[in-house]
């Protein structure tokens, strides 16, 4: 995984139309974006479009990326998620939950060699952190994150008061953060 300065440098090169940077970014993040697309959009063609759209949008905003405000992988996935939510809204379909998160679908392939050492480990730790969530917290967060639902919509779908939906998502996010920090302490 690149240091923050390296991430900024990579995005600056991408902004400058460096084809090497675009290849590096693609190899590093396309599997992540494609995986997110499969979870959120549910089909391969839409996920491929998501990958393409994400890399175009990343280039258009590449100069504005600031590693001081967050990691590049989180930024890439935020952009991808935003585009996926737009696609979901266009479809006007029901939100998709990530019931399969712990059991990758048959479409799931192997991560790239670099990802195996870093992203794969990070993802595994993140999934262990998610196991610390209650079923209710996880369900609410999945609807909000993958389904692009507002807390009001989550409340309606779950049949719970709005305040409860907000509290569940709020608490789930804080618990994830804490659980991840604990895994870092255990596995430096």
């Amino acid at each position, binding site marked *: 995984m690149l240091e923050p300065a390296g991430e900024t440098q990579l995005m600056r090169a991408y902004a400058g*139309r460096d*084809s090497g940077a*675009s*290849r590096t970014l*693609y190899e590093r993040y*396309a*599997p*992540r974006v*494609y*995986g997110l697309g499969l*979870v959120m959009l549910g089909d391969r063609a839409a996920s*491929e479009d998501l*990958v*393409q759209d994400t*890399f175009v949008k990343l*280039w*258009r*905003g590449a*100069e*504005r990326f600031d590693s001081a405000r967050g*990691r590049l992988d*989180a930024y890439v*996935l*935020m952009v991808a*998620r*935003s585009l996926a*939510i737009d696609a979901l809204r266009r479809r006007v379909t029901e939100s998709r939950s*990530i019931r399969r*998160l712990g059991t*990758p679908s048959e*479409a*799931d*392939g*192997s*991560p*790239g060699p670099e990802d195996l050492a870093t*992203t*794969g480990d*990070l*993802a595994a730790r*993140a*999934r262990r*952190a*998610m196991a610390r969530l209650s079923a209710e917290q996880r369900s609410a*967060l999945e609807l*909000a*994150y993958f389904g*692009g639902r*507002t*807390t009001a919509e989550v409340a309606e779908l779950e049949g719970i008061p709005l305040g409860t939906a*907000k509290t569940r*998502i*709020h608490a*789930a*996010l*804080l*618990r*994830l*953060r804490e659980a*991840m920090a604990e895994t870092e302490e255990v596995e430096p």
Partner: protein
Amino acid sequence: MTCAEVRERLPDHVLAMTPEIEDLEVRRHLRGCAACRAELAALREGVEVFSVAVPPTEPPAELRDRVLDTLEEEWRDARTPSGTSRLRAPWLVAAAASLVLVASVAWGLGQARRADRVQAGAASYERLLSTLGGTEFRVGAVRGVDGHDVRGSVLLYESVWGRSWGAVFLRAPQTADELSATLTGPGGFSLPFEALWTKDGETDGWLVTDADLGSVDLLTIRDASGRTIATARISSA
């Protein structure tokens, strides 16, 4: 908006699901509240954990060439490397038309005296901003300095999509030369419009940029010799 009201909205804010108008209020509060920013940072870390939990999946091999070819095409079509351009494309012309409308709304807001008119204008403003998907409009009145007869207005639109706009409208009856207009802000931020050519004492200029215009607080108008002839303080509409 109070801290309690902001924190109630942070889950939607951090998941980018807050309606644009509400989000504007949340952002304003966050800029001046360290405690809420700390809360937001904690929630954001949680979102990052959640996002990386998705298993990576190798996309089809042919997608790589498709994406890289698309990028090459995008780069060829891009007019300037800086992302700042004059309005030429049809959609930019449409954007310009929108800006004229917004300028009218903003000007109307500034001139309104009756409470009901202000209320109607504010509602119109909010609807417009929400429809466009922007963060906010910021405006300033151009005033001549050192006795120069220059009047006009400047309008900035902050987009969440990296396509922010700026427009300047000037009336300078005593000037027949080329003018320059530059937006500046703290930390040395500087963004020039392309040269403004006066005709019958009037001129206007536009720019579209992916730069963050949120900190811009001053427009400076200079004549062909570089002398400052007018300025405008820019603030939220």
